């Protein structure tokens, strides 16, 4: 048994943990959980825990639904909100086939494969997400209207604000689980908050995002709110994105940093950006996976709807943030397309592979976009060579379907399943009659 597993077993003994939740995600990024007793854990480390994958989104295959969960001891955490005398802990799991091979349908494995690809090229991939979400008054049932808990704006300090308490409680829990929080503040929309996680390697970050969503849900229930990561819950108000800062390291050196370059950006950094932009449309179905995602992307409010990059341009899809000249280690690029409802494992994987493709093929970065691209006319944008992102889930799926890059990254099984699932979502959505339609044409 290795050190980490020993540590886990010891911690469980010492902290009197009575339940261990084994976490994994389905293809859409929904967290799944199985609870086991501590006595079963040794066995789980060695043999894994068998389960029937056929009822889990994206894991099912006709004749091979038996799958195995193997907990990753490095992700062991006590779940603080379960509190009480007898603790509960969780670990993320890898999903294996009965032969002990990694399951091609495991999103965590998809990201691991992409990271391995980067490692072969000598890179490690770090991410730092800014997660936005709304807090609403508690919903009794699904049809209740969404009422934000306050009416404040960007960075507003709300006196005796409930959001304040909320963020403090959530951050305390996160920190107690070893997830470092960089930053938190009130966002532009009413009831909208942002919490930034400290940068970490992409796999840990993705695990952290999954944990983060659970923590926020737990705290909101405790405090009597409803929290939502829905990309665009309120028409006319800003959507919730998950702007993510990306960087590649070669050993201890930041590969994006070059002291003399424009914005101190290295050739690798520039090619990485070029890759992101070049493949942005193909990966959009993954980074923005719901019908609702496109209402954020195309709802104005500085949403990154166009494939361009800028330095201090808050409408660009890719932004090169300012950082102090002597802080080469913090050189990074910010991808602003991603939303908070994406499956972080798959999203990080496709973003990484898109950028890496740019590096491997030596893509050239287009001109910087200095204008607010929202204010340009279509013709101006065309003249500048700035293409839009897909306008709907339907368009995004159509572009992704033709993408070798996404197919390679996700693996054939996940790729096929994801497309089928999204086509179905679009079909279901199209069958809806919305209040908008009723209001507008219902009286004709």
């Amino acid at each position, binding site marked *: *048994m*290795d050190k980490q597993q020993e540590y886990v077993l010891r911690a469980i003994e010492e902290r009197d943990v009575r339940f261990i939740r084994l976490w994994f995600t389905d293809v859409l990024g929904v967290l799944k959980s199985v609870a086991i007793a501590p006595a079963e854990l040794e066995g789980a480390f060695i043999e894994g825990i068998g389960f029937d994958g056929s009822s889990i989104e994206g894991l099912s*295959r006709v*004749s091979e639904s038996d799958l195995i969960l193997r907990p990753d001891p490095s992700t062991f955490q006590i779940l603080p909100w379960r509190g009480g005398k007898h603790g509960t802990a969780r670990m993320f799991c890898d999903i294996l086939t009965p032969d002990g091979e990694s399951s091609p349908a495991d999103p965590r494995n998809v990201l691991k494969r992409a990271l391995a690809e980067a490692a072969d090229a000598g890179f490690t991939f770090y991410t730092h997400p800014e997660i936005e979400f709304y807090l609403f008054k508690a919903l009794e049932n699904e049809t209740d209207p969404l009422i934000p808990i306050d009416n404040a704006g960007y960075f507003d300090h709300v006196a005796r604000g409930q959001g304040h308490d909320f963020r403090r409680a959530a951050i305390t829990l996160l920190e107690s689980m070893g997830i470092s929080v960089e930053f938190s503040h009130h966002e532009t929309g009413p009831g909208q908050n942002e919490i930034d996680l400290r940068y970490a390697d992409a796999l840990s970050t993705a695990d952290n995002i999954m944990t983060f969503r659970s923590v926020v849900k737990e705290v909101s229930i405790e405090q009597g709110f409803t929290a939502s990561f829905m990309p665009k819950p309120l028409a006319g108000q800003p959507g919730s994105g998950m702007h993510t800062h990306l960087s590649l390291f070669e050993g201890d050196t930041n590969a994006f940093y070059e002291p003399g370059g424009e914005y101190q950006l290295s050739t690798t950094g520039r090619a990485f950006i070029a890759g992101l932009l070049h493949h942005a449309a193909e990966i959009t179905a993954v980074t923005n996976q719901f019908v609702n995602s496109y209402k954020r992307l195309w709802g104005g409010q500085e949403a990154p709807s166009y494939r361009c990059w800028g330095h201090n341009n808050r409408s660009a899809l890719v932004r090169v943030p300012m950082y102090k000249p002597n802080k080469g280690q913090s050189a990074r690029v910010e991808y602003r397309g991603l939303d908070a409802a994406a499956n972080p494992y798959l999203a990080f994987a496709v973003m990484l592979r898109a950028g890496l493709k740019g590096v491997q093929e030596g893509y050239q970065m287009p001109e910087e976009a200095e204008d607010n691209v929202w204010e340009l006319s279509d013709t101006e944008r065309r003249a500048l060579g700035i293409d839009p992102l897909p306008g709907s889930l339907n368009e995004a799926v159509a572009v992704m379907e033709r993408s070798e890059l996404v197919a390679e990254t996700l693996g*054939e099984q996940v790729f096929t399943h994801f497309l089928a699932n999204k086509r179905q979502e679009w079909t279901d959505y199209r069958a809806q009659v919305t209040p908008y339609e009723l209001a507008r044409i219902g009286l004709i």
Partner: protein
Amino acid sequence: MSRAVSLTGLLARAGFDEADRDAELFRSSFLAQVYDECDVAGQAALTGALGRAADPDRGLLALVRLGEADGVDGAFLRRIFAADGPERERVIAVLGASQALGDWLVSHPEDVAIVASARYRDIGVGAAGEQVRRLMLEAVSADPAADVPVASVSASEGALDEMRRTYRRILLAVATEDLTADDPETLLPAVSATLAHLASAALEAALALGRAEMADHAREVRLAVLGMGKTGGKELNYISDVDVIYVAEPAEGADESDALRSGSKLAAAMARMCSMPSREPALWEVDAALRPEGKNGPLVRTLESHLTYYERWAKTWEFQALLKARHVAGDASLSAAYLAATRPLVWDAVARDNFVEDAQAMRRRVEAHVPIAEAERQIKLGRGGLRDVEFTVQLLQLVHGRVDETIRSANTLEALAALSAAGYVGRDHAAELASCYRFLRVLEHRVQLGRLRRTHLMPSSSDELRRLARAARIPVDGNDGLESRWRATRRNVRRLHEELFYRPLLPATARLSADDVSLTADAASARLRAIGYRDPDGATRHIKALTEGVSRRAAIQRQLLPVMLGWFAEGSDPDGALLAFRKLSDTLGSTYWYLKLLRDSGAAADRLAHLLSASTYVADNLAQLTDAIAWLDEDEDLTPRSPGVLATHMDAMLVRRHDPKSAAAAIRYLRRRELTRGAIRDVLESVPVTTCREVIAPAADMALHGALRVAMSEANTARGLQAAPSAFLVVAMGRLGGEEIGYASDADVMFVHDPDPGADPQLANEWALEVAGSIASLLGTMSSEPQLQVDAALRPEGKQGPMVRTLDSYAEYYQRWALGWERQALLRARPACGDEGLAERFTALIDPHRYPDRGVEAAELRELRRIKARVESERLPRGVPATHHLKLGRGGLSDVEWTAQLLQLQHAGQHQDLRVTGTRETLLAARDAGLLAGADADRLIEAWELATRLRNAIVLATGRTRGQRVDVLPEERQALSSVSRLLGYEPGHAVDLEQDWLRAARRARTVMERVFYG
């Protein structure tokens, strides 16, 4: 002057290459004095002795340098060289064989005394480990009797150099004895055991030096050093990395984490003492890479931590490595505890889940891990190298050591002797392998002694080889004598592996000589299981049946079977292969050529084993067609027969057969023969797509040709006709028309006839119907020969229409009714056999319909697309994922073929080149005509070829030619794995095949949707 000439002459006669230069050296050195004082006989004896050195010229040069070295005892040297005795012999042997030891003597001339006496403070070959340890510890002024010896002089104050000097001196004594031994191969075990003791003692001294450097001598930690590999096996060579594992425990009352920290430092310090630069040369590298988690793991662990690792995480090869572990330095009681605790794990390793796969992978590593540049000269690695011998012995130990404690020695030669004594391997074979091992080791030692470098490469120049042979005292003939003996030894090691491993599986009654052994039932079962047989009892029965008895057959099987057993085990189904082999041998009995072929042709036996283990289809077919085994020896017999040759064979057979039953049997026999030929080649060559066109389709054509001939003659006879009343034609349709059918396909056809002018149309029609009917029944009725279902469903009006039509009727029908799908079906129409004139007329008739000038009209196009879409949604069987159905699934055969056919309907009217029946050919023609993008054509062809190969591979692997599964990529792992092996994937890469198929199919589908659906 005359003396100088005679000296040169003497030297030349004695074997010096550069006698002139050497004579100069001779005269300018202390030798001149010795030489002058000798009488004539003494002079000849002196030059003769010098000439017996492995390399006389280099030896002389070293001697001259030694004579001039600072601090040399000249008088002593002269006295030794004046006398024709063993002392002189020894000095010459060392100087002539080792430049490095010569250099050592030049810098340490006082050590000449060691060489002269071949003992250093009473230590030499065979010295006890304890004695060597005492000497080495004394060199660093540590107390050998102390529980924890600590150097009382620090390394930098000279203890390190003193330790290294002592080491060299003992090495010098050992080397001298070794180099002057009459029979170095006999002395070898003692030499390498002494070298292992010396390495252990050096580690002990290095540890004492390390402790001396640490605060409080690192008393908080008990550190045990276990020797692994050759050090552990007491079979070390002159210079190589010393493999170790460290175990650390806190001393009484010390804190564990402090102890581990100090333990790591101490271990690192010990290793440094052996390898860091100093005045005296370094000894060797200490390599701890065999520890748990390898290079990433902590350098030292507690005993407990070692055990938990081994119990849970260790791989099979780690237990194999542990087999060699032995206490070499540090805390002996801790080592003993470690060994006591790990031994059970080692000896139970054979029961682990993946033992078989792991052992096979280890074997591949042994054979494969040779740098290409060295592959030809390696003594240690690669097939037939030293590592191979060690692996063979260790694998046998792991397999049988579980129940037999007598064979657990860590020493290769001792273990081999024990295996032989306990009856696990034949006595002769064991002795032979031991002799190979000793020979290779002596070569390795001599190569290393030259420069004291860690090398395992045979020299390649003939001069060097000659020197090597002399240094090893190996009597060889001519210049390439050593080279050829070395190569023969390697071949022998390979052969002996088979003999040792598989021969004892034969029953006692099958022993070839009194020295052979036969395993007990349990031991045989353990061994069979360890090499991959899933049903050892069944296998034992087959082996027994094959080899028992006094027949010539049994006698040859006894020779043959051991190696075949090994080959079967390399394939995907060893048990099935052995059973099939037994059936074959039962059928063929004592057929003379069969056994002779297998005995005399290694290639044929190897191929047979491979075929039986890889393909159930081939195994079944060989059982039915044993003659085919003879083809295995002759590549020419495995190349496909041309249609012309096949037709001649067919005609020749039918001439002799007059009743339809025996004629049908002959036709089907010939087809089966050709399918078998194709299948064998498929298995041997990773299932090439060309088999369809070169073998399977021609075989079907030939069968139709034969059946037509018989059917016509029958119909004539029944009506008392002298000649046929009508010309008759069989038109191949569908995949047969495209010459791309697989092993499991039906033959799609249409029948055409054209009554002779003046013949009674009614009679002609009845006659033609009978001909068509009997073709189908001749080929399709059940019998012991495989069927070929003849399917005429693509004819006008399908199953409702008449089975045969006249040419005129076809003309009328197509003129009036030809529907889109019928035109499409005609695209692959190809006259297969029958009347040639009619073939031309029929082709002329259908061409305007299938290659319409105007292309496809909008309505027709719409209808085609609709039919395809409906087929997609309706024909796919339930329960099969669309991604895995090779024929009807997404991107499968049907998608690609419809695309190709649509391009033909649209453009063949204008483009002659599109007028072909093959899918691949159509797509290539469309590409060349600019009708299909190159990349699109590639993707369609890639998916189509892979699907075609997969369908054939599935039949080959399973032997099933009927049922739904023939067209579905297997999801069951075992089946997928067999199919992937057939297609040429490495073992363990079945998942890659699945990914490759899904990718190819997805890409093809994308192209198809664009091109076909528009």
